[in-house]
């Protein structure tokens, strides 16, 4: 390609062109929709979308990262969500039962965190085991058609986890009504439960830490390096296996954390992961694969879309409309709204 220099443009034109790019337009459009929704359907809709949106962003960020680094299209991502919820349930319920007998306000406030942290750790462990036991084995043998083949492996894993959990723990719902028994707080004239506020906080703090980790630390930089050029990463001395294990662990930990945090909204049962899975996919498709920062915006867009569909058309339709929307986006912009070409996408 010719090395013709880009023409210098004035900052104003730069700003306008950025704002009218499809990414900018989407954000503006989303904000407008959000405002309209708030006016028409009440602020509750908006707050609801914001809370779930944060968690969808966590899920999508993990999914996106794994794709960027390992070129792995993970169909089993929702299962980590389920495992997270399950772990949190089995850690939190006994503790909370014990605390009912021996009240302690301090521990009661902390108990949910024990559940969420345990879930995060278990999620990470499952990720590590899967990488070592499955993906590493395939990578060692053949790299040909990796994207498709590894995707099918995750399909197999998903089926095994879902049915394994069903055999061991049965199909009944394991859920809680709330983590904290506090009085709902009033925000914008709407009562909103403490759970939702804390969960939103967790999502935002985690995203911030995650972002900092990727941008500013040596290991985070190494992860990004692998996602941009595997051979280059090897050439500077990065241990690919280590980074791959770390990435899958990180991604599944994030998904498990989301599952644990949302336990009061999504009780854990074997196939609970399916919906978060395709929601995470919608987000990722919307903003393009491998785009971690965009996942945040995408999370809110999808959550808003779902809440609005639920409010205006009917709760049972909240898959169909976002599906149609995402299909439309894929059709118009095959690499997502914010997406640039990502490595591996065009592997055949």
């Amino acid at each position, binding site marked *: *390609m*010719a*090395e*013709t220099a*880009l*023409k210098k443009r004035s900052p104003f034109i730069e700003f306008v062109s950025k704002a009218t790019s499809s990414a900018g337009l989407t954000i503006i459009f989303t904000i407008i929709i959000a405002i309209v929704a708030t006016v028409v359907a009440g602020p509750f809709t908006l707050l609801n979308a914001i809370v779930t949106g944060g968690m969808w962003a966590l899920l999508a960020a993990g999914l996106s990262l794994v794709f960027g680094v390992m070129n792995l299209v993970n169909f089993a991502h929702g299962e980590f969500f389920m495992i997270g919820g399950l772990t949190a349930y089995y850690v939190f319920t006994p503790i909370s039962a014990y605390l009912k007998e021996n009240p302690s306000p301090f521990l009661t406030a902390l108990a949910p965190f024990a559940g969420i942290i345990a879930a995060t750790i278990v999620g990470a462990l499952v990720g590590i085991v899967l990488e070592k036991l499955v993906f590493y084995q395939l990578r060692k043998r053949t790299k040909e058609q990796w994207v498709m083949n590894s995707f099918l492996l995750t399909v197999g894993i998903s089926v095994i986890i879902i049915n394994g959990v069903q055999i061991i723990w049965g199909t009944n719902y394991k859920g809680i009504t709330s983590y904290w028994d506090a009085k709902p707080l009033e925000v914008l004239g709407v009562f909103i439960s403490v759970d939702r506020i804390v969960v939103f906080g967790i999502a935002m703090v985690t995203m911030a830490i995650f972002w900092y980790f990727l941008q500013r630390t040596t290991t985070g930089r190494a992860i990004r390096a692998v996602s941009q050029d595997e051979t280059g990463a090897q050439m500077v001395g990065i241990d690919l296996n280590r980074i791959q294990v770390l990435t899958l662990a990180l991604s599944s930990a994030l998904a498990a954390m989301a599952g644990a945090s949302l336990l009061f909204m999504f009780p854990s049962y074997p196939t609970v992961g399916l919906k978060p899975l395709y929601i995470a996919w919608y987000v990722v498709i919307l903003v393009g694969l491998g785009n971690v920062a965009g996942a945040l915006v995408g999370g809110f867009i999808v959550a808003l879309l779902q809440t609005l569909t639920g409010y205006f058309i009917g709760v049972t339709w909240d898959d169909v409309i976002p599906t149609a929307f995402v299909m439309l986006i894929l059709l118009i912009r095959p690499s997502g709204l914010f997406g640039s070409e990502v490595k591996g996408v065009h592997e055949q």
Partner: protein
Amino acid sequence: MSTILEVRELTKRFGGLVAVNDVSFKIEKGEIFGLIGPNGAGKTTLLNCIAGTHAPNDGVVSFLGKKMTGYNADVLCRAGMSRTFQISQPFPRLTAIENVMVATIFGNQRSNIFNPEQWANEMLEYVEFPMPPETLACNLNTVQLKRLDLARALASEPELLLLDELAAGLTEGELHELMQIIRKIRDNGVTVLIIEHIMRVIMGLCDRVMVLHYGRKIAEGTPQSVAKDPKVTEAYLGEETLAA
């Protein structure tokens, strides 16, 4: 002689980058036309615009007197324009002969071929393909793949053949062989457009040469006159390259 390909004021941009900038030229039937320029000059992009892989932002490509801009590569192939790729593009899981058969069956629709297999075999012989025709394409090396690409391009019986750096990485002997083959192709009535780095190939083969630099045409003419053009020497032909 009649014009087989005419490119008028062709421009191709990628984002803010102008890869090909307002280029016009004509290729006459039966000639070997060279396209040279430093790497990144936009040669392959120009070729892609002609062959229908990219749609140009501006300008017209006429092939055999008909306006062909905006048509896809497969239409152009069937109309009689085939190409090879800078980086060979085989069908890795098909055998060499099946690779050529694909182009025979789907690219060659202007004449009826009753036995595509035999035809494909002849094409492989024609380009002096060094391996058994039953070899899977994924087991061939770069040089063999280039030959396969050439055979596949010829299988559709093109009027115009676009060759993108076919000689890269060949030894002296292979280079000589290849030049013989290209001459043979031309003598069979096929017009050839060739992108090449190795000056000796250009000097030895081409009737006319065009030089691109930063997406613009800076010279056109016989190889000798172009080599003497001070603009060209300055932009591209550093003293060492001239020697080689």
